[in-house]
């Protein structure tokens, strides 16, 4: 072999390697009934006792007593495993009837005992989702290890049971529909060594069961033949973990995924590519949550209500929505978002008024540039939004200095009440105002843990007590009065907007309905494949 042949051979080798697989095309031909989805978020476990942030798998392999769905634009609680319930006049006791003939994915029948075990387990497992179960009489004692059974849970027979609450709670039934209240199989969960992590041990009664889970890589779900509900068109799910948003974008364009969540895709690409080229395939849902600006009232400037009001007047939310291309977002005036029970569409808003804001600051004794605070931005937060708000505030002479912190540090400081200000989004778990007002203003510990440090203990006591008002109208009125006090009078919460979750369907998906609260997670039964894709 002469030198020239040797050199050419060496050069050609890697090219041959590259071309070889090209002969066998890599375009994956999807199986009939297969639905492929890619996401950047991996869960820690399928067990909702230890996972309160990633509900995709729990939503689809477990059922709840109730499910919340959007009905005529309003989040509505519908029966699921429970077919009927009766509430006592004092709002303390609930009698439930379970659906007959429900079986778990291993064939075991569902009974009242499974429900009691599920609720008891949430309170005894150092769980993250205790908020609902702890309202049951004896729940706190069980959690504090001062009791060994859930006193307020009484089994009548296999399909009937009753629950007595410690205090009335108008949002209890809505709370039971949250993914956190997914019902598990008592027999298999008790025997499990690795519940939530080992698919074989993680048994639910939902429409799917998990066949394989390789963390950080993929998860395969299959249709549960014992499922009691209508048979879905999706028979198998291949959920891939693809951390890079632009790779997910490419995969959608290449037909490798059947649905894409456009939240993490650049807003400009969504507007100019997806909404133009795939306009008929766009599906969006209002996020039942709020993007807000939190101001810490222990800060030397922010403790003055005039400064907080000036800040609210200095933010042009319409401009934020328009310039940041959040086309589907809507302006908000209060704490309880549109679509949530108790929302007050007539709440007085605050108009964008930079001159008025400057005048208010002058009245408070501050000159241009005097008011200065740190706007803490988590590394996973929305930098552009923070920069835009900071720039808007600069125009009224307020310096909101952005400081980027890694998410763990940001969270630690928020919990310690140390942030001056920050922008975040809160998504509701269930359709009740307590799930947002109680979280932020339910107690001094809670408001401090949110770095708001709201000082009015009387208002906080009322917020905490509001969930126990039995009469719905009275309860709604109380929440709206409290919302007025906190937002309009005290300016302790600056609402920015209610965002939207936008998805784009692939060729194989005929229709899709996002989750009622606008999560990235959704019910796979709400995905309908085309006739061709069903096979």
């Amino acid at each position, binding site marked *: 072999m002469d030198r020239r042949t040797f050199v050419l051979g060496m050069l050609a*080798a890697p090219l041959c390697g*590259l071309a070889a697989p090209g002969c066998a095309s*890599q375009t994956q031909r999807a199986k009939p009934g297969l639905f492929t989805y890619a996401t950047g978020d991996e869960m820690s476990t399928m067990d909702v006792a230890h996972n309160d942030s990633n509900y995709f798998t729990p939503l689809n392999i477990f059922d709840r007593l109730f499910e919340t769905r959007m009905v005529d634009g309003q989040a509505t609680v519908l029966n699921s495993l429970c077919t009927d319930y009766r509430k006592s006049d004092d709002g303390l006791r609930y009698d439930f009837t379970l659906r007959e003939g429900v079986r778990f994915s291993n064939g075991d029948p569902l009974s009242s005992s499974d429900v009691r075990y599920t609720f008891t387990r949430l309170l005894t497992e150092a769980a993250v989702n205790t908020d609902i179960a702890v309202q049951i009489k004896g729940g706190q004692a069980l959690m504090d290890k001062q009791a060994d059974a859930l006193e307020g849970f009484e089994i009548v027979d296999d399909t009937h049971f009753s629950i007595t609450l410690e205090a009335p709670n108008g949002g209890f039934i809505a709370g039971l529909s949250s993914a956190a209240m997914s019902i598990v199989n008592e027999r298999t969960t008790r025997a499990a060594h690795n519940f939530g992590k080992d698919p074989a041990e993680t048994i639910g009664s939902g429409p799917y069961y998990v066949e394989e889970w390789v*963390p950080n890589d993929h998860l395969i779900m299959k249709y549960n033949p014992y499922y009691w509900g209508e048979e879905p068109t999706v028979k198998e799910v291949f959920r*891939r973990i693809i951390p890079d948003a632009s790779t997910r974008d*490419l995969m959608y364009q290449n037909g490798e995924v059947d649905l894409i969540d456009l939240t993490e895709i650049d807003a400009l690409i969504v507007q100019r590519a997806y909404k133009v080229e795939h306009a008929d395939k766009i599906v969006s849902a209002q996020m039942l949550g709020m993007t807000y600006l939190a101001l810490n009232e222990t800060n030397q400037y922010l403790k003055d209500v005039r400064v907080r009001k000036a800040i609210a007047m200095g933010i042009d939310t319409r401009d934020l929505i328009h310039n940041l291309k959040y086309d589907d977002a809507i302006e908000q005036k209060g704490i309880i978002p549109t679509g949530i029970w108790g929302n007050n569409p007539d709440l007085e808003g605050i108009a964008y008024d930079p001159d008025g804001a400057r005048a208010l600051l002058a009245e408070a004794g501050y000159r241009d540039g005097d008011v200065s605070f740190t706007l803490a931005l988590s590394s996973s937060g929305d930098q552009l939004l923070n920069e835009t708000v900071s720039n808007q505030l600069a125009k009224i002479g307020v310096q909101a200095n952005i400081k980027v912190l890694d998410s*763990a*540090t940001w*969270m630690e*400081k928020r919990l310690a009440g140390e942030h001056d200000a920050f922008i975040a989004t809160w998504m509701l778990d269930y359709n009740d105002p307590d799930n947002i007002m109680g979280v932020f203003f339910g107690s001094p510990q809670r408001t401090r843990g949110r770095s708001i440090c709201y000082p009015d203990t009387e208002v906080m006591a009322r917020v905490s007590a509001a969930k126990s008002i039995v009469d719905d109208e009275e309860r709604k009125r109380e929440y709206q009065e409290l919302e007025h006090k906190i937002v309009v009078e005290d300016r302790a919460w600056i609402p920015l907007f209610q965002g939207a979750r936008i998805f784009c369907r692939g060729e194989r998906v005929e229709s899709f309905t996002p989750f009622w609260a606008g999560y990235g997670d959704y019910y796979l039964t709400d995905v309908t494949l085309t006739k061709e894709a069903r096979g």
Partner: protein
Amino acid sequence: MREGTLRNLAKRLLYALISIVGVAALVFALLHVVPGNPVAALLGDRADPEKVERVSKALGLDQPLYVQFGNYLLGALHGDFGQSYTLGKPVSELMGAAFMNTLWLALAAALVSWVVGITSGLVAALHKNTLLDRLFMGASLLGVSLPVFMVAMLLQYVFAKYLHWLPIAGVADWTGYILPAIALGWSSAGSIARLVRSSVVEVMQQDYIDTARAKGRTNTQVIVLHALRNAMLPVITLMAMQFSGLLSGAFITETIFSINGIGRLSVQAITSRDIPLLQGTTLLCTFVIVMGNLVADLLYSVADPRVRKGA
């Protein structure tokens, strides 16, 4: 193997062990000094003080630091590196799966970089100051200067999106490694090519090359047996260092191509303050780098008799 070499090897292994334990202690201390509560990070936006306290207790993070470190070391001696907070699985299991993916990726990338780098460096050196030389060196400069993410995205667009030859992401089979290996190996190939060129050019001017020619060796024999072998000494060090680097952190490539590898796992552990996972991946990376250096030294002694003889 000679007694001196064995003693030297044992000494190096002991140093490696000390380094690994030292790194474990340092990482543990650092993780508890830097701000950022792992439980708060784990719970995310739903975190409230009561939840954090409850979960911290369940994870044993309420125990004194020396107890936590003692438990960790004890477990590590038995191969138990604890359970990842964020992925909920044993760290050893997660690292095992991720390391195999990274190992295949690193081997494939090394193959690309070595074959392309050595070949183009050699060709450029043998055609010094010609158009071919400038072409290869220009390409190698591109390799060194183009960021990995850009190469990766270009490859995805061309070979996956338009030509449909290869998958965009994932490593369901061997074809999934091709694009990431080229993206990752491309940059290393540039450095190797430049080093090989300069080394070969230098070696070709040595007297023993003329001697070899005078002895009637063919041109190929002169290049392969004399020039390349001698020119490879500095290249071997670079290759070994690059390989251990590939094994310990190809985060960008692994993220873009969705490969569940050590680099991605490490960054995930850092951002979420997943202490057991971070300690596990750090120890593994330390081990790989220490071993990489050791192998480089051994290869060096194989290639250079003077080193072997202790000259």
